[in-house]
């Protein structure tokens, strides 16, 4: 593998200096995010001229190939369908809660598709669509929200951490996975996700600093959807951007239009490639918007104006990508129909699965606390088993 993207014969691991030499820029210019958000496709679905994409020397991004874009688009359509299906199932009482990523699907899809099969992802509660796009079975993903257990999939099987609720704690797990891989000489890249509000947490700081000091291949991917439940970004941070936080750790930061799937694929794709060469961690901030309430239990009208939501509606990632691909002649009617059918299949699998009431086993409460049940848990399990058998007798 080359030290820097595109260089074939390098044998040494890349360090910051090598990378900067490759791009012909200073370390500061490499670490600092570009002056504005990287945007490759504009809100109407038109390719922006290269000089208008927000790039600067060292921050230019090649356009992903057609095949990559079509695969990503398919996941985008599925992601939107999944979000809306799940929200409907919550309204019908089939799930306790669902934090929807409606409006953020481009981020979700790019986060999963930029990774290789052996790379890891550490998602939050909001990132179910990313989890599914990484390959986790949709129904297994939703077990957390259906309420039969705290997690429904085997993280090692899919290389996806369990969706984390305690904010930014999972970033440190990402650091640990990357560190273990590095110690074994494996070139695993780890992508760790969090929201804008979460960047105020202490573990955000500790994780970025650890990743930088140990020079680990971790991409910190912040979806800045402008709110942490009700609290707007301005009350979390007065930094010029969240991407700027990287510089303080000696890490490269970049900011990107989070509703532009093409730009996200380009920026995250290069970040993964750089991290894999040994260039260290990166922080990518995506500007996007949470189109719906924080969860179904939240009332967003209490803290934001309809006009603001409408303005973001015009920047919808799905409409934009559809227009772009149609304009490019990549997306014809048969392709659209095939993709829509695939999305409908996933939605149906979710409906069918979540409309079932699988039996929960009360005695499983005691099964996974320790590798072997302690004598105390054996006693408590017997107590509950006895209660259950007496209930059974009474029936």
């Amino acid at each position, binding site marked *: *593998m080359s*030290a820097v993207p595109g260089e074939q014969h*390098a*044998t*040494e*691991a890349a360090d910051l200096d090598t990378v900067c030499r490759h791009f012909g820029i200073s370390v500061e210019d490499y670490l600092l995010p570009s002056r504005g958000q990287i945007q490759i496709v504009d809100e109407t679905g038109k390719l922006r001229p290269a000089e208008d994409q927000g790039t600067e020397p060292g921050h230019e991004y090649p356009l992903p190939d057609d095949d990559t874009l079509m695969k990503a688009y398919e996941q985008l359509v599925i992601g939107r369908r999944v979000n809306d299906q799940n929200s409907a199932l919550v309204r019908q009482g089939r799930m306790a809660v669902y934090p929807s990523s409606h409006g953020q699907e481009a981020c979700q899809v790019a986060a999963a598709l930029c990774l290789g099969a052996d790379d*890891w992802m550490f998602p939050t509660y909001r990132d179910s669509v990313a989890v599914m796009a990484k390959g986790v079975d949709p129904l297994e993903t939703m077990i957390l929200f259906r309420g039969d*257990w*705290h*997690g429904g999939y*085997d*993280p*090692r*099987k899919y290389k996806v*951490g*369990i969706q984390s609720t*305690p904010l930014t*704690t999972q*970033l*440190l*797990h*990402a*650091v*640990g*996975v*990357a*560190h*273990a*891989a*590095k*110690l*074994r*000489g*494996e*070139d695993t890249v780890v992508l760790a996700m969090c929201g804008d509000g979460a960047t105020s947490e*202490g*573990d955000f*700081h*500790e*994780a970025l*600093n*650890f990743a930088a*000091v140990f020079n680990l*291949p971790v991409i910190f991917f912040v979806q800045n959807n402008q709110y942490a439940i009700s609290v707007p970004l301005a009350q979390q941070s007065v930094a010029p951007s969240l991407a700027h936080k990287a510089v303080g750790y000696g890490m490269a930061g970049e900011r990107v239009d989070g509703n532009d799937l093409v730009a996200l694929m380009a920026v995250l794709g290069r970040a993964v490639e750089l991290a*894999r*060469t*040994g260039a260290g961690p990166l922080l990518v901030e995506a500007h996007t918007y949470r189109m719906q309430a924080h969860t179904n239990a939240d009332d967003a009208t209490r803290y934001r104006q309809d006009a603001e939501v409408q303005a973001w509606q015009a920047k919808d990632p799905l409409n934009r990508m559809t227009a772009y691909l149609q304009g490019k002649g990549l997306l014809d009617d048969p392709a659209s129909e095939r993709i829509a059918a695939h999305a409908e299949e996933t939605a149906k699998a979710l409906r069918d699965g979540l409309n079932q009431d699988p039996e929960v086993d009360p005695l*499983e409460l005691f*099964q*996974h*606390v*320790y*590798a072997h049940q*302690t*004598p*105390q848990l054996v006693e408590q399990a017997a107590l509950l088993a006895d209660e259950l058998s007496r209930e059974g007798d009474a029936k």
Partner: protein
Amino acid sequence: MSPHITTSSEANGNVSAATAQATVRAAERAEAAGPKPVTFAKALNTALADAMEADAAVVLFGEDIGTLGGVFRITDGLTARFGEQRCFDTPLAESGIAGMAIGMAINGMRPVIEMQFDAFAYPAFEQIASHLAKMRNRTRGALDMPVVIRIPYAGGIGGVEHHCDSSEAYYAHTPGLKVMTPSTVADAYTMMREAIDSDDPIVFLEPKKLYFSKDPVDLDALRAEHDAAASAGGHLTEGRAAIARPGTDATLIAYGPSVSTALAAAEAAAQEGRSLEVIDVRSIVPFDDETVSASVRKTGRAVVIAEAPGFASVASEITARVQERCFHSLAAPVLRVTGFDVPFPSPKLEHYFLPSVDRILDTVDLLQWED
């Protein structure tokens, strides 16, 4: 190309380093033949080295544990012997240390991490309580968490504020964690080995007042005993209390730093003709109800001794368990000698706070003796 780093100790150095290691090991073996005075610290250090030798997945990290060997020197020499990839310093961030250990465990390693002092482990509490303790359960057994958190623990050293906390109740109250504390040099070795062998997370509390105490022990014999038990799939210490001193009239139940105080009290009581049995709990979680209850049923009287403030404490839990299990054998209520419900005192005041021989004997006197 990504940096090639392996976890094998041999691969970190060159041939001469490997030869040097072999020489060191041979010398250690020769030196260790037969019981010799060994410090508690050296027993822990040897256990760590043996575990690292036995399994390349064992990695150590924390604050000042590399070049310096830890502020108490428990990791002395391990970086030199096993390389910087196996025993290293991190930035100062306890949540970071615990969180990174969790990630490493997810990815196949067996981290042993050090918190510099008991009260400095608190920043790591969210990682410990919300993830380390719950990961196996949350993933229905898919992810085990073979992580050991080593914590220099408790008082009795004249330490300043934040260096002497007895924090065991926080951990013992958290399902999913196991909590161990050795009180003898031999147990320091064996319990550390078993903690590292465990697929469950272990909070390993090292009574810091014992670090430089010595017992005559045969480390080779302990190593062989551990290896034999481990290969038979059994435990010598996990979930097993020890009878530190047999007796017939009352049972003193203690752990960690309080065991030596309890033994001294039993010795003093013997001079006055009273035979006290001393139980060393060793494994707070899982708790050995069987050994403790058997002793109290035999003696009919019990005092539970611990340094931590008594309210809502491990001592309270033990007292309740003994009461529930031994009620019909009890000649007197189970009593406790614990720290007062005050923050750990400054050095000039700590001896008023810590359980003492006199306070234990006074309490034993209250156990409704017939004579």
